[in-house]
């Protein structure tokens, strides 16, 4: 009641324009009947009578009867919704819209959006504290946790999280909030990645601890047992320091869980895979109310892993670390692998733990699993196109791991949610440590070919076809039709909104000064800058690439060639590290450390503040 009144008052008086980011009704287009629902996350009402489905592509929350799948209500929200949660009393549902940087506040009784608040940079998960005072929102590209006043939506503070902050879990008593991250923290070049679980005291709204996750890159959902003694996070453990040609020896990814809390006594990593079979892209996690079972969805393997918690903890207590790569371990605690739909993501248990609901994002279904029998007893189909389009087939191909040797990984392992992974890989069988390449963003690829850092692949069909067969999957590859669908999907990946570009197109003074530097043809001494040393010559066109290769002096002794493809600049601010091998940790380092002879643009005449201006401009690209 307090929130409703506050929201009403807030809207009526327009206290703060900044707090109301965009009125929901004004920005949400009419649903496209050809749009797939793409269920990403699930929630059950406390009484179990309603199943809430967060539909990513449809940009809706659909409210279903969990018994029948009957659609009770449809609630339009913002673009690319990525996470949702109830208020403690379940009278409100909060939905974060990752491409609108907003949170939709929904009254669960009326199933209407009451307010839409501005929230962070690419908000991906939201939780309200038990006191009902604050909303905590994980910002994927803000790399922080934004704290909003739960009554007014006004931002109170931001808490420093890790890179790619995305998923949140609150303990049952509300005393601790945990955050995970889909991108790895910065580490020195050619060293193992690491991640963290950020621990927040919601009452103080402060970060109080950071659980270290060595060797981990992408961490997805996290769950806490009802007694608060066991935490479980699903994650990717990449092996990016050795050539990927060793896929047949298990050198690509291990799919693991991080366990922590009083039941474990420490932070420990345990494998989900088997010796000859991998369970790719562990995403959703649920812990049974009695803590007897742990359920994990595998977005790349189209199944649910069921773990016996007692056996798992026994194994952890008996066996010394490290055993994350001991794939024989899972046989001691994995009870079942339950096939579900395509690209299973969010999971939710019924209050009594008897049913597990699974959102199958890429076939628009909800699998209902009988947790006693460990089998799917019902599949709820969501409203949407019956026909599977070529684009949809391409997306299914992108997210599945079935084409790689032993199902180890799919395209989405390295291009998380169709983006990148922040890692540098040793891709080809030319020896250890040769031709290290940084992973690039794959949004809006049309007009950026050729591909590969050496410019060796003229088209996506070549990039994703013969090359993938030879170097990645090491087993079967796509036939022509599957490849055509995959290329179609990749060519249709849009660019995310650029938060640094002013909405009206007018650059800030610093951005404008940087733009002038980017396009300059004369240096500060009045000397003409050779064409190939002008930023805008190589990084030309709307996407910031001339689609040609140059030697800009950044080649390393371990590279087979110093002539490199000019990378596109879209969303360049988000994709650190930089250069072909990821050796530059920041945009600054491209010029402060790796451009001693002005081969990578004439920059040695720039002052520090001018370099800052140049970076401010690049952040608008």
């Amino acid at each position, binding site marked *: 009641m307090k929130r409703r009144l506050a929201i009403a008052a807030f809207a009526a008086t327009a206290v703060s324009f900044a707090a109301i980011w965009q009125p929901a009704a004004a920005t949400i287009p009419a649903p496209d009947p050809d749009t797939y629902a793409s269920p990403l996350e699930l929630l059950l009402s406390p009484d179990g009578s309603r199943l809430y489905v967060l539909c990513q592509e449809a940009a809706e929350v659909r409210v279903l009867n969990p018994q029948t799948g009957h659609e009770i209500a449809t609630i339009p929200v913002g673009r690319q919704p990525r996470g949702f949660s109830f208020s403690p009393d379940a009278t409100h549902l909060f939905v974060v819209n990752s491409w609108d940087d907003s949170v939709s506040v929904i009254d669960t009784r009326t199933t209407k959006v009451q307010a839409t608040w501005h929230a962070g940079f690419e908000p991906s998960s939201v939780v309200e504290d038990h006191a009902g005072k604050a909303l905590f929102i994980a910002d994927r590209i*803000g790399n922080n946790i934004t704290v909003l006043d739960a009554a007014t939506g006004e931002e*109170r*503070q*931001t*808490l*420093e999280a890790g890179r790619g902050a995305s998923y949140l879990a609150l303990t049952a008593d509300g005393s601790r909030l945990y955050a995970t991250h889909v991108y790895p923290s910065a580490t020195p070049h050619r060293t193992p990645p690491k991640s*963290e679980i*950020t*621990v927040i005291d919601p009452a*103080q*709204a*402060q*970060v*109080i*601890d*950071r659980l270290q996750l060595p060797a981990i890159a992408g961490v997805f959902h996290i769950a806490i047992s009802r007694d608060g003694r066991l935490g479980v996070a699903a994650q990717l453990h990449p092996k990016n320091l050795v050539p990927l040609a060793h896929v047949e020896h298990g050198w690509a990814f291990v799919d693991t869980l991080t366990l922590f809390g009083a039941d474990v006594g420490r932070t420990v990593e345990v494998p989900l895979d088997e010796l000859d079979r991998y369970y790719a892209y562990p995403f959703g996690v649920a812990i049974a109310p009695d803590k007897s079972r742990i359920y994990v969805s595998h977005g790349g393997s189209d199944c649910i892993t069921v773990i016996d918690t007692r056996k798992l903890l026994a194994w952890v207590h008996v066996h010394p670390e490290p055993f994350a790569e001991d794939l024989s371990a899972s046989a001691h605690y994995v009870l079942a692998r339950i096939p579900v739909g395509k690209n299973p993501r969010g999971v939710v248990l019924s209050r009594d733990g008897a049913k597990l609901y699974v959102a199958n994002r890429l076939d628009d279904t909800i699998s209902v699993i009988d947790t006693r029998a460990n089998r799917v007893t019902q599949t709820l189909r969501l409203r949407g196109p019956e026909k599977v389009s070529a684009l949809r087939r391409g997306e299914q191909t992108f997210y599945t791991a079935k084409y790689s040797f032993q199902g180890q990984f799919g395209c989405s392992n390295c291009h998380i949610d169709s983006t990148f992974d922040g890692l540098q890989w040793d891709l080809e069988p030319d020896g250890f440590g040769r031709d290290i390449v940084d992973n690039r963003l794959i949004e809006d690829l049309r007009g950026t070919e050729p591909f590969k850092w050496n410019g060796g692949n003229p088209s996506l069909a070549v990039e994703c076809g013969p090359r993938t067969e030879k170097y990645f999957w090491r087993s079967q590859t796509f036939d022509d039709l599957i490849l055509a669908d995959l290329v179609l999907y990749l060519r249709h990946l849009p660019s995310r909104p650029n938060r*640094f570009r002013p909405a009206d197109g007018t650059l800030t003074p*610093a951005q404008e000064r940087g733009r002038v530097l980017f396009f300059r043809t004369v240096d500060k001494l009045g000397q003409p800058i050779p064409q190939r040393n002008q930023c805008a010559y190589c990084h030309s066109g709307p996407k910031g690439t001339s689609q040609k290769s140059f030697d800009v002096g950044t080649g390393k002794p371990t590279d087979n060639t110093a002539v490199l493809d000019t990378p596109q600049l879209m969303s360049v*601010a988000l994709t650190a590290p930089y250069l072909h091998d990821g050796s530059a*940790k*920041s945009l*600054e*380092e491209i010029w*402060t*450390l790796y451009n001693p002879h002005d081969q990578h643009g004439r920059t040695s005449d720039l*002052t*520090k*503040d001018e*370099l*800052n201006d140049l*970076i*401010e401009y690049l*952040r608008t690209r």
Partner: protein
Amino acid sequence: MKKAAIVGILFAAATTLAAQSSSHSARALHAATSVRSSVSSLPRFRFENFTTANGLPDDHVFCVLVDGEKVWAGTNNGLALYENGQWKTYTTADGLAHRAVLSLALDKRTGDVWAGTMGGLSHISAGRIDTYTQLNSGLSNDVVYGVSIEGDNVWVATAAGAGRLDTRTGEWSLYNERNTPMTEIWAYGVSAAPDKVYFAIWGSGLLELNQKTGVWDKYDDPDGENEMVLLKNQGLIHEIVTSVSYIDSVVWVATYFGDSHYDGRYWHNFLTKDSGLPSNFTNTVRGIDRNRAWFGTDKGLAYYDGTNWAVYRPALDTGKSEMTVRDASGKVTEIPVATAPAHSYVLGIDFQGSDIWVATAKGLSHGIHQP
């Protein structure tokens, strides 16, 4: 003239702004002493000193920062944290930008600490240290003499001008001779509030940035760049400014040749010859409110209550603990005390309720208030 014209506006806004910029702990100390301007009300302390002998990583302590029960000390050999009676030291092996920590600031909203070092700016958040340098970020220079937090902004004073990091957007803005009235770029200190930001510039006076208008103002020594004081209370006491503290809409300024107080209309200067200041060579100043401030000099720790002065130090000749007070008439009285700060060369000051913490060239001192 321009300054005089805007004084009225500034004065009208003073009450609101003061509430935003004041130090809670400083007020607590003030409350614990007295509002009465009498010699007997000057605070007395029992000093407990920390050195390498009892856990500090280095005796040379540049700065100190209090966060509730926690105390951070920036030393010549690492950043030390005093918590639950024990010291923990963060070093470059933990990610600290440099072993010499020159300045500290607390983000009260998040509990994070920012440390200015001889090798960059470090952000300490729940044990994680992220470092900004002139090579990997927009920071203008790796020698960070001063740091101050205001909202989402981290303000820094460096050996090559001042700067601001907007932690929401990651944007760096640099301030130097190219875009401010700064004639020298050796920035020693910064004190930031939502309305104004002040910079202590070594050799270039006091700089003011009005955040609402974006207008810069510069306050210079009217006597020019020499050590003579011909025009007392007509402006800043000297161009070599080492520290600034902005609170309750007044600015307290420390220089190597005396100190100043500016309320937006009037200047009041302090020299050893006509105040209780133990030395004109002042490393740091911390204002408590419009009338009271603490000074860290090369010859002791000094407190000014608006009328009277108190000085705390080991005697310069014998090393014996001493406290002297000077009243409005200039009468100096020695107060018998058993303890004093670890050294007379004072570099940093912070407050913990009614207690004071003092960073000196030979140890860190905890002044426990005595009723």
